[in-house]
């Protein structure tokens, strides 16, 4: 059986723009939140966000953007990117360097690209306003490819000359988890030898405030406690963005070229709630089934799991259903559980790939991230192992949960690869 392993990671996140900084943040439970004011309106009840540092991309014109000097891109590349497309490109560059690959290696036809983002409502809104002002007679030729859902795969496939499978995934906050799961399948089924998996999002009024309209965001103004998954006083999620990139390879191919191996993606599963367009199932039925299917796919028993990277976003309803799902799957087994969204915020469609990358880091660097900001666990969490601090150790098997609108649930199983 062909096995899929993770060989490269790249991060542009609220808690660091590179794996060293990210790992340190996860170990020390250092959050990435800052006070924000959207649309210059202090009355908006969204006061903090997981901001991306080192990038200035608040203009719809790419010529105004500033980004870290270690990256340099030509106008022909930048002109069709959205802000999160730039984050994604930077994360891909890191992941390739980390995997000891060159951009030119990706054009071999045996490499595919799976991406996930919600597109750029910020840029889409700008281009549509411009088109309306011209009464439909003119529009920017880059408006569409830079802003619609799929913008990541359009741009990255072109930039890296990808000739293998190219696809985008749209399942809201489970999107990049689907991308990673299906990428692992491409390799396990022998369709590709290598996959680049990328999730990215922006932190602008246009894509964040719609969640406030749903009453899903925390109104808290305290960056230190606004995001507190599983805590009794949680009151909504805190938004974040950035990009996460993973290089996934067939194990033999990776070994043959002496690539560093973080972990194996040994299985994954998905299941729908069949319940509600926004709210998760009250007992987390779909998420529990996704976890069971992932474990069965990987041939792992619940008792073998050392750590679960929970989806828990810090909403009242969602965290409770996940807690119940975890209890139903694990019973007497008590893996450590935490949600790193307490540190990063909720990265929306990028969350699954980001947190899978965190899991890969934890496996390779031998630690388990703790539950930041958790003081009074919700009684629904009774019996779950929610360590407050990160712990050094050698986790062997970890699970990564994601859930999206419509009750779309995905779970990955990542496993330590024998030295």
């Amino acid at each position: 059986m062909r096995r899929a392993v993770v060989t490269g990671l790249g991060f542009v996140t609220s808690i660091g723009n590179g794996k060293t900084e990210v790992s340190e943040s996860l170990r020390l439970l250092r959050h990435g939140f800052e006070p924000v004011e959207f649309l210059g309106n202090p009355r908006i009840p969204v006061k903090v966000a997981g901001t991306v540092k080192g990038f200035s991309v608040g203009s719809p014109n790419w010529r105004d953007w500033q980004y870290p000097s270690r990256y340099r891109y030509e106008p022909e590349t930048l002109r069709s990117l959205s802000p999160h497309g730039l984050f994604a490109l930077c994360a891909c560059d890191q992941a390739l360097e980390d995997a000891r690959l060159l951009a030119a290696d990706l054009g071999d036809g045996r490499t595919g690209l799976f991406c996930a983002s919600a597109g750029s409502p910020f840029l889409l809104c700008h281009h549509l306003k411009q088109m309306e002002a011209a009464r439909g007679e003119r529009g920017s030729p880059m408006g569409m490819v830079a802003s619609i859902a799929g913008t990541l795969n359009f741009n990255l496939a072109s930039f890296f000359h990808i000739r293998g499978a190219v696809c985008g995934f749209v399942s809201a906050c489970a999107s990049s988890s689907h991308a990673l799961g299906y990428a692992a399948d491409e390799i396990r089924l022998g369709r590709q030898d290598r996959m680049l998996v990328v999730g990215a999002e922006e932190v602008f009024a246009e894509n964040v405030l719609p969640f406030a309209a749903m009453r899903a965001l925390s109104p808290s103004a305290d960056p230190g406690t606004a995001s507190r998954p599983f805590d009794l006083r949680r009151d909504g999620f805190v938004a974040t963005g950035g990009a996460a990139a993973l290089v996934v390879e067939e194990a033999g191919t990776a070994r043959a070229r002496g690539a560093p191996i973080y972990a194996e993606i040994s299985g994954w599963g998905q299941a729908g709630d069949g319940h509600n367009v926004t709210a998760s199932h009250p007992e987390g039925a779909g998420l529990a089934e996704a976890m069971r299917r992932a474990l069965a796919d990987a041939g792992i028993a619940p008792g073998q799991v050392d750590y679960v990277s929970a989806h828990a976003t810090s909403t009242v309803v969602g965290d409770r259903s996940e807690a119940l799902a975890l209890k139903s799957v694990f019973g007497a087994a008590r893996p450590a559980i935490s949600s790193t969204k307490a540190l990063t915020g909720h990265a929306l469609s990028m969350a699954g790939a980001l947190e899978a990358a965190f899991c890969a880091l934890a496996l390779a660097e031998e630690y388990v991230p703790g539950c930041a900001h958790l003081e009074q666990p919700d009684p629904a969490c009774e019996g779950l192992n929610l360590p407050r601090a990160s712990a050094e150790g050698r986790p062997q098997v970890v699970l990564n949960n994601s859930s999206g609108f419509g009750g779309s649930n995905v779970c990955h199983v990542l496993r330590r690869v024998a030295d």
Partner: protein
Amino acid sequence: MSEALSSPNIQEKLARLSPAAVRHYSQFAAAGKDEDLRALVFEVLKYHLPKTLAEAPPASWKDEARIIEDLGFDSLAMIETVFFVEDLFQISISNAEIIEVHTVGELLRFIRSKLAVCKS
């Protein structure tokens, strides 16, 4: 032109190019001199270059310079330039018209003829 000149959108677009572009635009609007149009179009082309220039200042671009082969433009940069020029001069350029434009000189003459049609 005077109406276009007063549009904040146009002024904003010009300001992004360079102070020289703003000056040449105003002078061209006032006196209609070829040298101002030429200097302005150079600035517009420079702004839309798909690749960073090693050196070669745009002033060295002769009228005979081919926009794609010599200046390194691709089809998307061409379309962006057309969009910009349409906005700048408040003219409408069809695909059939633009595929006839290959050199810097042809682009200048084309804009000239379009403006003449608009005025008449």
